[in-house]
């Protein structure tokens, strides 16, 4: 009943201002989404990468009138049933007139619509290109946006201190540059037409200089792209930096992949979005060159060519017989993108990666099924030869890799089946298959099985799995989400996995299981509370074992969270979060505990909004560290891993004087009174506190 009344009100409201689909698009609460999608309390993945990728995805809202099923699924909000019904609705009644029309699509409940609003728009008129030339359109486009940001740690870190010669007269390592992090991004785009932009960045400690011999051209990192869409038979043409997503990400995933988390259903399936421009600053996960997707009837053919320099420490080995012959090799590819010290700078762009790819995807016109094949070859100028150890002996060694892959998906009623099978040079294989579906109103399920061999090699893969790389793993996963009451939702998953060969911290074939349960209560639009529990058991080497043989021991990691959100009125909102963890190994190692409490206080005063947090944390060790999702300036992330005992506060101010300008200021401080120093190596601070300051400016023109 309430829903109907609300719907009527919404309809009335929309009649009042019919000329625009002017439901104000709510601010994106990115940290909430990240929190839900990623299981951050678990593995040692690079969260910052994931975060940046998600931001990219969410910074370009999808047009519900034009969105493909893939794009709809890629919001991770809609269930398979909702995707299908929205498509059916569009087919039957034509374009959506306004965002309010979503309410008349069966199975769209208010919760879903509220969640979707930040990421979706409804364009009333099709956004076709007009007859003006491209340059004119670029000049006239109204969404130019330039972001400039600087970040700085106030305390002095060891890397910036004067280096005193040691007894041998050698100078210890220090950073070459200053402690500011600088970032700038410019982008102009028009959906389904073009996108043009550049990004540049300098990490703290990197020196701004013009030194072509050291491959530094002012700032340390530069990236630019030009994407054209819908030119004759070309669906997409991209120049510069780009990413590619194919199938379930076993070969190319473009890093968008999220895995197991509090959203157990919508995230297990990868969306094969194809070619995308790259606008981020992660110095590893992109290609540089050109790519094009041609659409011939229902067949989409993509050709990619890329050549870029990558970092790595180059060494020489001398032939054991003929000492005049020496060969260069790199022990690894380094993707951190840091070039702060002489050593790091020396390894910058020391290796060259060349990639060629051809992919073809047949898409059945009604979207019932699609089927794709891909072939790719990737070559390093200097071969990669890893330092041999027992567990990496099946890793990639050499200078060339090829992948072949087939992928497909099939939609049947409210179910979507998907899968990909790939192989790499040398015979390594990887396969993943699964389904997501709606069993009934509000009941969504998912299942995924995977099998990745220990000698499968793909440098840009990110398929579903427990481990960070798609190697040496078998597993089966079940997910269930059920909204059993308009205000209540339960989400659970269970995953069982096996690592048939040795892996990091497991000197033997191992495996384990993991499950998570989350119960969310949303009594009103302005309040919500959830409780979550997660438990992971894995066979790991017994820690503190002094014997010669490692003993695999069931190792448990448990996390719980309770979080409550409340919006007191139009300008004041609260959030309280309590979370804890427990870590222990069977056979003797006593359990370690960690806990943290955070209180948020947010003010939204029109042109000014202020977010504040006070957190307290107390953990026994690093294994029980607490990850806290923090608000940060737009397009930046902050998920500190806190351990030990201490407090953390931050304050973020956003000031938007007019439509053109936004200014952000953020200050965050960690205080650990028992500590004499914070951080390690060159990041070490000789104090018991660490303070970070961020200033960001956005100019829309």
């Amino acid at each position, binding site marked *: 009943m309430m829903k109907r009344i609300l719907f009527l009100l919404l309809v009335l409201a929309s009649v009042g201002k019919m000329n625009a689909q002017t439901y104000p698009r709510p601010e994106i609460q990115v940290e909430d989404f990240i929190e839900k999608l990623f299981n951050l309390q678990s593995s040692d993945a690079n969260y910052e990468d994931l975060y940046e990728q998600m931001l990219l995805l969410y910074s370009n809202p999808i047009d519900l009138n034009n969105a493909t099923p893939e794009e709809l699924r890629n919001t991770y909000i809609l269930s398979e049933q909702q995707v299908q019904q929205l498509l059916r609705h569009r087919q039957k009644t034509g374009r959506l007139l306004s965002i309010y029309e979503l309410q008349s699509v069966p199975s769209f409940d208010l919760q879903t619509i509220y969640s979707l609003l930040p990421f979706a728009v409804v364009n009333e008129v099709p956004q076709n290109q007009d007859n003006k030339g491209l340059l004119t359109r670029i000049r006239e486009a109204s969404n130019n946006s330039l972001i400039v940001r600087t970040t700085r740690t106030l305390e002095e870190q060891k890397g910036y201190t004067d280096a005193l010669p040691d007894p041998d007269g050698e100078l210890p390592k220090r950073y070459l540059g200053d402690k500011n992090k600088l970032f700038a991004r410019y982008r102009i785009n028009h959906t389904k037409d073009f996108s043009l932009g550049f990004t540049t960045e300098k990490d703290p400690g990197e020196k701004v200089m013009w030194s072509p011999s050291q491959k530094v051209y002012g700032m340390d990192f530069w990236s630019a792209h030009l994407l054209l869409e819908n030119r004759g038979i070309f669906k997409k043409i991209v120049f510069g930096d780009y990413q590619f997503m194919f199938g379930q990400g076993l070969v190319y995933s473009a890093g968008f992949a999220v895995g197991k988390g509090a959203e157990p259903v919508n995230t297990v399936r990868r969306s094969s979005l194809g070619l995308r421009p790259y606008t981020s600053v992660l110095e590893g996960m992109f290609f540089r060159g050109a790519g094009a997707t041609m659409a011939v009837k229902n067949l989409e053919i993509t050709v990619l060519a890329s050549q870029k320099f990558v970092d790595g420490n180059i060494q020489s080995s001398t032939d054991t017989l003929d000492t005049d012959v020496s060969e260069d090799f790199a022990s690894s590819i380094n993707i951190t993108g840091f070039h702060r010290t002489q050593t790091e700078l020396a390894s910058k762009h020391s290796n060259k990666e060349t990639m060629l790819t051809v992919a073809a995807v047949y898409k059945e016109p009604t979207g019932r099924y699609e089927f794709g094949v891909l072939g790719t070859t990737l070559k390093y100028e200097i071969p990669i030869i890893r330092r041999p150890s027992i567990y990496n002996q099946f890793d990639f060694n050499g200078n060339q890799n090829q992948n072949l892959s087939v992928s497909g998906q099939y939609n049947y009623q409210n179910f979507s089946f998907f899968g990909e099978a790939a192989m790499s040079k040398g015979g390594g294989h990887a396969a993943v298959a699964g389904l997501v579906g709606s*069993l*009934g*109103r*509000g*009941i969504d*399920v998912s*299942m995924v099985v995977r099998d990745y061999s220990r000698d499968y090699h793909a440098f840009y893969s990110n398929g579903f799995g427990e481990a960070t790389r798609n190697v040496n793993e078998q597993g*089966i996963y*079940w997910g*269930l989400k*059920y909204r*059993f009451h308009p205000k209540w939702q339960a989400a*659970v998953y*269970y995953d*069982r996995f*096996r690592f048939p060969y040795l892996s990091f911290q497991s000197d033997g074939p191992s*495996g384990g*299981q993991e*499950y998570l349960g989350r119960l969310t209560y949303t009594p009103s639009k302005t309040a919500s509370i959830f409780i979550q529990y997660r438990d992971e058991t894995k*066979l790991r080497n017994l820690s503190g074992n002094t014997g010669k043989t490692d003993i*695999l*021991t*069931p190792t448990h990691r448990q996390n719980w969270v309770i979080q409550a959100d409340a919006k007191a009125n139009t300008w004041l909102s609260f959030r309280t979060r309590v979370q804890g963890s427990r870590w222990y190994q*069977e056979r003797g190692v006593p359990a370690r505990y960690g806990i943290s409490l955070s209180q948020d206080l947010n003010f939204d005063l029109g042109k000014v909004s202020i977010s504040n947090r006070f957190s307290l944390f107390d953990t026994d060790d690093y294994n029980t560290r607490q990850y806290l999702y923090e608000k940060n300036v737009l397009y930046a992330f902050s998920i500190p891993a806190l351990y030990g005992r201490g407090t953390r506060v931050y304050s973020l101010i956003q000031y938007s004087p007019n439509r053109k300008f936004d200014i952000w200021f953020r200050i965050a401080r960690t205080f650990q009174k028992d500590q004499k120093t914070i951080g390690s190596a060159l990041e070490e601070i000789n104090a018991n506190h660490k303070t970070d300051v961020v200033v960001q400016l956005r100019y829309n023109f």
Partner: protein
Amino acid sequence: MKSTFRIFLLLSFSGTSFRLMAGNDGFSYGPRSMGTGQISTLFTDVWAAHNNIGSLGWLKRGGVAASFENRYNSSAFNQIAFAAATTPGKYGAFGFGASRFGSDLFNQTRAQAGWAKVFGIASIGIQGQWYQVQAAEFPARNHFILSFGGLAKLTPKVSFAASISNITQTKASDFQNEKLPTIAKAGVSYNPVKSVLLLAEVQKDLDQKALVKAGIEYEIRTNLWLRTGFTTGIQLATGGIAFKWRDLQLDYSVSNHPQLGWSQGIGLQMILGKEKTTSSGAVKTADSEK
């Protein structure tokens, strides 16, 4: 000799950190349980005569069933089972079962009879079982096992069930005063919409860690069911399919253990009895609608 060693090896997995249920104790009967992660207390079909005698009280119509199960691709772990039950009447329902697990080298034979009846929203049942264990050349041992069970329909959609097998803690052998395992199970089922049945169960063997099981049964088409589920701890992953034609139902299930591999089960059920209206006839379940 090779097979003796293999049996020894497989049975000895019960001591590893991710345990296998030792021998045949604790496993459920019938492919339906097998496909839903070994859920056993909650199904109110003929197999309740093995799994939870109490649930038999809610049986809609009597019938007979047979199943064959092969575990881990070894003929030493075959199991054949039969079940029969009467349509519940004024005096409740009667259920009978027989099963044999193993090979000539090691086998367990069971035969049981039980009774169950619904009182208000809950049913209770009691069962007596003759249990024989035979290992190679050793003399067979015979035991009597007493079990209880029940199922309560808390709402038309939510059921709660529990069972305890071997409540008398029958002695298995005088050697070290070894007892046969006493296993308690408790579960909840939820029927959110007609075609979906969600199941969860906890199983506790007195001498082992508790296992949590979860399963789902989905009627994708009329008379066509898909099932999947898992058992934590021993980490079984299971799935199954069932098809019903008139009064005949064919079930097939598979199950995977991370170390021991695949198991399969196939079963046939035939409904014979006529539906009777009992005092509890108004309450519907996923089973009663079949």
